[in-house]
């Protein structure tokens, strides 16, 4: 074989490497010369190159059905270990694991309390619980007696504070000034929530500080980058809330961002140490 007179058989042998781009310069020149002279080989090379390009551009396919249900059912099945854990793994329970576990319990309890309290508060109308009319008013069944007019907690409280209520009943609060009351409640609620989250995040950050040395540096870098992003979202939410303190949407977004931070810190607290 010479560079100037490559046969079709020689071309066929060189073609895979030519398409890969791995031929040396002289052989590549011979192939290109042959391609310029041979219609059959030029067509072959053109077709194979097109197949390669078309294959690389094939779009993603979609399954004919949603496969998640089947996956979820399989991953939800309990996994029962068939053998006892090796001794090395059983010993893997350093002191920080206990500290992390305790912190997570406190964190979960605190945040659950706040979220539950807020949920209950939002799910029911704002009401005032006042003492029911007593037997001195002559009612035979005070629990079913309808008041003649709406009463505010303040009005009922006047002069009635010493009377022991037979039955409590619920009276809707006056709508007057409700916006102001809501705003005050919302602000107090948000402050309390942020305080609880702040305390828990502080505890988890202390755990994370001690764990940093046990984790891979690239993992720590990713975690810190994500924490910065979440902190930016928290700052944006707080700034927006300062402008519109009654917005439940903004409040929810701040809670979501704080939740994300707590989740990420909890994950870090329980990450296995790098080996």
């Amino acid at each position, binding site marked *: 074989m010479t560079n100037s007179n490559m046969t079709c058989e020689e071309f066929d042998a060189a*073609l*895979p*490497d030519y*398409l*890969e781009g791995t031929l040396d310069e002289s052989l590549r020149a011979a192939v290109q010369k042959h391609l310029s002279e041979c219609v059959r080989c030029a067509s*072959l090379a053109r*077709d*194979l190159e097109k*197949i*390669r390009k*078309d*294959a*690389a*551009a*094939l*779009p*993603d*396919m*979609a*399954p*004919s*059905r949603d*496969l*998640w249900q*089947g*996956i*979820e059912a*399989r*991953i*939800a099945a309990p996994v029962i270990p068939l053998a006892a854990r090796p001794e090395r793994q059983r010993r893997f329970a350093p002191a920080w694991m206990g500290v992390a576990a305790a912190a997570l319990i406190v964190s979960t309890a605190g945040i659950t309390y706040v979220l539950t309290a807020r949920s209950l508060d939002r799910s029911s109308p704002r009401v005032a619980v006042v003492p029911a009319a007593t037997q001195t008013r002559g009612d035979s069944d005070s629990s079913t007696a309808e008041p003649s007019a709406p009463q505010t907690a303040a009005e009922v409280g006047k002069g009635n504070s010493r009377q022991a209520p037979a039955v409590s009943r619920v009276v809707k609060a006056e709508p007057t000034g409700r916006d102001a009351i809501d705003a005050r409640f919302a602000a107090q609620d948000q402050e309390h929530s942020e305080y609880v989250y702040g305390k828990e995040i502080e505890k988890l950050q202390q755990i994370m500080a001690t764990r940093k040395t046990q984790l*891979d540096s*690239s*993992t720590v870098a*990713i*975690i810190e980058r*994500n924490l910065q*992003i*979440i902190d930016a*979202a928290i700052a*944006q*939410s707080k700034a*927006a809330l300062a402008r519109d303190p009654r*917005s439940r*949407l*903004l409040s*929810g*977004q701040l809670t*979501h*961002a704080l939740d*994300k931070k707590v*989740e*990420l810190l*909890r*994950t*870090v607290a*329980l990450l*296995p140490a*790098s080996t």
Partner: protein
Amino acid sequence: MAAVSNAVRVAMGDSADVALAAAGDRLAFERLYRMHANRVFSICARMSGSRVKGEELTQDVFVRTWEKLPQFRGESAFSTWLHRLAVNVVLNARKTEGKLASRTEQSDVEDDRRDEMARAPLHIERMDLAAAISKLPEGARKIFVLHDVEGYKHEEIAEMMGITSGGSKAQLHRARLLLREALER
């Protein structure tokens, strides 16, 4: 403010959901599934040459991902790790092929019909190429999909399949020649 939450998710990519899913959060894992299902299914269906097998293998891949996720160290992108895991699941599925065949045998006709339906919206050339790939012999098909569709190098394919890189090159060339022949008909 919803935009803030979305922006956070986009900026963080998969990493937050990967961390959460590794800690056992199934909602986070479902988000990962939704994000990557089509890509994984494409690998599985093309390598196996069947949409039905591809769907079964896709489920296997995500179950395996759930099991292996705590071992993911973030040394590569999650998607790279996931796609490699998908390839390994498909390659290892050969060991249980008999079992798989019995499950898919009865639905061959349905499989063909689904194939036609799924390819219908695509360009005519792509439809032909996809069909021709599924008709390739198993070894040549897997190597063609891994190299020309998924972009793996011959050395990587050789390592995954337990063959030489020269063998991978030869099979790839054979696959391309067979596809040319099929597309010329």
